[in-house]
């Protein structure tokens, strides 16, 4: 299968005076339409890895190729465009814009392109909100929703521009176990329905085991990398 993300010899060093190396010569690739989980203890470098894949952070050395494009050569504006079109983010703290309603939050990635919101686009946003089960509260301000609803809104938002890759950092980190279960079911469903590649960080082994592939990061290196045979 095609590789949608390729990392070669990625190193990440923080600090200039006191240098801390977080990632050591990482070589990883992810296949299209796959559902991957990254586990590891806190401080292992898994979040740093996800942020580098998401172009939010820059590798100190090494190459990050997303969808065939080497991110090293991209300008800040082109990186922003890449994030907008190709990547969807789901963070632990849902990070909705509290000033906007659920529907407006979902539409935001689309509107960032300064394109007009057409009927079709609005229909897609509605469909996504329906998918995450939030049709009834779509006109609520983000602050007037429960934690689970906010996280599901964030998922719908991540899907708005039909990205090829969704990066999720502890997406259920502050949700109760029932909601956690629902959210994972939802992500799996999306993975099947839209053929979206998922890379999910979690420290919950039970959740990780539901993924097609589990990568464990330890001390900035790939410690375990197992794939379920289909």
């Amino acid at each position, binding site marked *: 299968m095609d590789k949608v993300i390729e990392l070669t010899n990625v190193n990440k060093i923080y600090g200039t005076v006191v240098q801390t190396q977080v990632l050591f010569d990482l070589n990883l690739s992810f296949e299209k339409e796959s559902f991957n989980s990254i586990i590891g203890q806190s401080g292992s470098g898994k979040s740093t890895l996800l*942020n580098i894949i*998401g172009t*939010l*952070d820059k590798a100190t050395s090494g190459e990050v190729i997303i969808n065939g494009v080497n991110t090293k050569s991209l300008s*800040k*504006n082109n990186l*922003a*465009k*890449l*994030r*907008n*079109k190709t*990547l969807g*983010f789901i*963070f*632990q*703290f849902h*990070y*909705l*814009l*509290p*000033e*906007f309603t659920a529907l407006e939050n979902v539409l*935001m*990635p689309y*509107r*960032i392109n*300064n394109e007009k919101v057409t009927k079709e686009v609005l229909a897609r946003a509605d469909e996504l909100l329906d998918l995450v089960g939030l049709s009834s509260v779509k006109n609520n301000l983000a602050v007037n929703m429960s934690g689970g609803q906010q996280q599901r809104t964030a998922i719908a*938002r991540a899907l708005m521009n039909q990205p090829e890759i969704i990066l999720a*950092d502890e997406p259920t980190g502050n949700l109760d176990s029932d909601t956690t279960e629902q959210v994972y079911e939802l992500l799996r469903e999306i993975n099947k329905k839209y053929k979206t590649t998922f890379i999910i960080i979690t420290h919950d082994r039970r959740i990780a085991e539901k993924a097609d592939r589990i990568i464990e990061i330890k001390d900035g290196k790939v410690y375990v990398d197992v794939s379920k045979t289909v």
Partner: protein
Amino acid sequence: MISLKIALRFLKSSKAQTFLIVLGISVGVSVQVFIGSLIQGLQKDLVDSTIGNSSQVTVVNVDDNAYIEDYMTLSMQIEDSNEDIENLTYSLNTPGTLIYNSTTEPVLLRGMELNTVDGIYDLSGKVTSGRMPSADYEIIIGTSLFDKFNLSIGDNVLLQVPLIGETSLTIVGTYDFNVSTINDLWIISNITTAQTILNSGDVVSNIEMQVKDVFMANEIAVDLQEVVANSNYNITDWETSNAELLSALTAQSSSSYLIQVFVTISVILGITSVLAITVIQKSRQIGILKAMGIKDSQASLIFLSEGFILGIFGAIGGVLLGLGLAFTFSTFALDANGEPVIALFIDPTFILISALVAVFSASTASIIPARKSSKLSVMEVIKNG
């Protein structure tokens, strides 16, 4: 235009803060509008009362005792030479002594061209009793002099002119210029009366005129010297003869500019600091927008838009507040006669400029926060949760 939409929503979501910034800008603009209108009104008032009813450019003979003979042609030449010249008139003057019963007072007989005198002096409007002179040997005199001599309308008085002799003149009215030196000194007749008394022939002492823009008087006077082309004639203007008044007016203008500059600076500082705080308040939102792919320029534009919107509302509020202040001031701050202490001068251009300066300052003030937001790193926001 997503930046503008986000900016509007940010402003709307923190109404109290937005209101306070707008109020801050409004107060600044209103002070500017009010002080500006006050000082301009003051200047106009001062200029009007000082030189509004007097000759602003005057042609006289270099020799105090000599006259202007070709005044008719000269007047026409002057009027044709410059469009800014208006209210041209001429007069023949002579000092003398006014005698009635046993009282004597030094006076200045002003033989005026009664058809054109009102342009400068509004003489008809200043007549307080009786009427304007219409025939030879008729005069009007100042109210104070009238009272001093204990005269009645229709009385005859004697005017003694040195080296000439005494002439009998009939009082047909009184005037009040509101200036005691004029009221005490001038007795006004038609021009032929003065010419007959002086036995001078058809001459005048001076040609007087006003100019459309009083601050152009000096320039016009210099130009006229060439038009007149006669070195015996001297051209004076109010700006040269009232240098002190002129420097007072200039000082007033500069103090007004100074106030406006400081008001603008304080508006800029206020907006910059508040917007800088807003960037920190909204750093989470900016961070997530950047993760979603908003460009740095779009992120900056959010704060520039905020500055612009705040500027617009602040300017509108400020102009309304300033005009309200001006209106209150001119309605309630009255002098003994029930007239406003200072007549404010509402200049729409000035108000528009003040408003535009506010919008511009507010937008400029948002540049620093805008740059800050553009530099904001997503990582910082995500790490700090």
